[in-house]
């Protein structure tokens, strides 16, 4: 597992402690009831702090799964 994926898993674990790693990797806003608007903002804050990036809050609606968020972080993290 690459470092970015592992770090992002930890971010999700911090916000959704009830999910297993496998469940996190398959997580979407639809499949995880706890992924509401408050959790989304908390998740963004944890990810920004972990990776030292700023996420585009207007694009949050598009970042609705672990894989989508991972793609976003992969694209942003190297530039920081």
């Amino acid at each position, binding site marked *: 597992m690459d470092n970015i994926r592992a770090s992002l898993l*930890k*971010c999700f674990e*911090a*916000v959704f*402690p009830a999910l297993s790693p496998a469940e996190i990797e398959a997580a979407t806003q639809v499949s995880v009831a706890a992924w509401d608007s*408050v959790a989304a*903002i*908390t998740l963004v*804050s*944890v990810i920004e*702090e*972990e990776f030292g990036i*700023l996420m585009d*809050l207007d694009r949050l609606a598009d970042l609705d799964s672990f894989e989508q968020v991972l793609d976003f972080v992969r694209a942003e993290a190297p530039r920081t």
Partner: protein
Amino acid sequence: MRVRLSEALRLARSAPGNGAPFVVVLACGFTPHLLQTFLAAHLQRAMPTRRVVVESGLFADTAGTLESAVRRDVQAVVLPLEWADLDPRLGFRGAGAWSAAAIPEIAASARSMLDRIAGAIAALPAGWPVAVALPGLPLPPLFSPVGVQASAEELALRAGVEAFASGIAAGRGCAVLHSGHLDELSPAAERYDFRSDLASGFPYKLGHADALAAGLSALVAPAAPRKGLITDLDDTLWSGTVGEVGPDGVTWDLSSHSQVHSLYQNLLAALASEGVLIGAASKNEPAAVERAMGRADLLIRPERIFPCEVSWNAKSAAVERILRTWNVGADSVVFVDDSPMELAEVAAAHPGIECILFPGNDYPKAFALLRRLRDLFGKPRVSAEDALRLESIRQGEVFQQSAAGSAPETFLERADAEIAVDFETGAEDNRVLELVNKTNQFNLNGVRCAPAEWRARLARPGAVLAVIGYRDRFGPLGRIAVAQGRVEGSRLHIETWVMSCRAFARRIEHRTLQTLLAACHVGELYFDFAPTARNSPLQEFFGGLLEALPTGPFALSREQFECHCPPLYHCVVEIKEAKTYG
């Protein structure tokens, strides 16, 4: 050390499932969730055995949240006030009507809201801790066309907030977060998150949220202040080695470039006046030290330093004797010395003691030392018993020496002891709860009690609270014991019983039980006893009454007590009427 958000989330969830709840109302006008997380994390870390729950109210309704808190079952209230709470136009999200013409109306609205918030705070029960942080975010560019200049209107607004803070601190006893302290941890320019405020209504950068939560948590659940400070003398209390330069050669003044020692002496004098125990441990010639301590220009009165252990033996042995005289644990004490070697020797012999290097004329470190000591010993308020503490320890020394020189019965009989048992102390008396929550050795079960719980206990039918004061021919000890319980038919169920270790060996505990049996008209006492790691003195006392060490709650009949009670010589000078609450 800054707590990251992921760590705060983990800490906030680390509460023990079976811990007693500690519910805090977070009254704020912004989206609370991240500050809520940081606050829960810091409180949980400060109270690991409790189950911290931080509840919030409606968005943009700080005053309403405060007003409704009084109807909730909570243990504390936290108010991180921001400008937008006073008027939405003072925040960036609600600044739809910025204009010079609106300023008088905004100012009046802010004054009115401050009055409403002050009223809501005043209506909260007196025992609830209330922690308040004053606005710390930038104001919108409303007041002045030039940012470098403070306008009269803005200054008036800030003055109104200061007056509000002064009023709630003096009147209701609210703990107001020191803005200078917060400034150091979280510089003003690093606080506001414009993007987050506009996008989600949370106005703080994470670092500021953490610093603010840490400060508010420390006000709600302050760390127990240390009880005693043991200081070295040469190159610590004063500059120079008294054995080399003589008593008149050591200095503590500006002209000798030793002002740091003067400030240190002044700080110790201030701490001593607040009841902090000050002792000295020095490798020196006693006669030389005695002459130096007798100098009229010493800034701390020499009798305030007790004991003063001066010899050529190891410092750890001197510290041992001082701790024994004070009857406090090493973890309640700070040791200050200019020698790293001495600090290491004492630290190795006394685990838990905090050893701090006196930095001499390293000015930044000396400045930090003075502030560190202030924080380690600071307490929200100083009680009459605090001021009595040193005197009662001296008195205890004389008491023990006198007791050693005569037969115990003769000595106790001639001690002219007077006990005052007060059944009318109110639930709001801070000293009583302080005694309950900091006493370890003579403590029925080690259970700590929050103010709200204490009030609830005393509000039940049949509740009894007895506060015991003591004096004898050696001097007063002040109020030294508390018993709390409730009458259940023919027995008194005792839930809390503590006595200061300063009051041991005087049979006060026997007299207390005798008085409770008589005043409450009961034939049996039932104790919520639990053995703890530190309450062996109480275990031994019960062992003497029961002829076996108890292992849990037990009942003691009047006959059992009378059969094992030794002769009592105290004069019970004041028993106000036994009063049941509720």
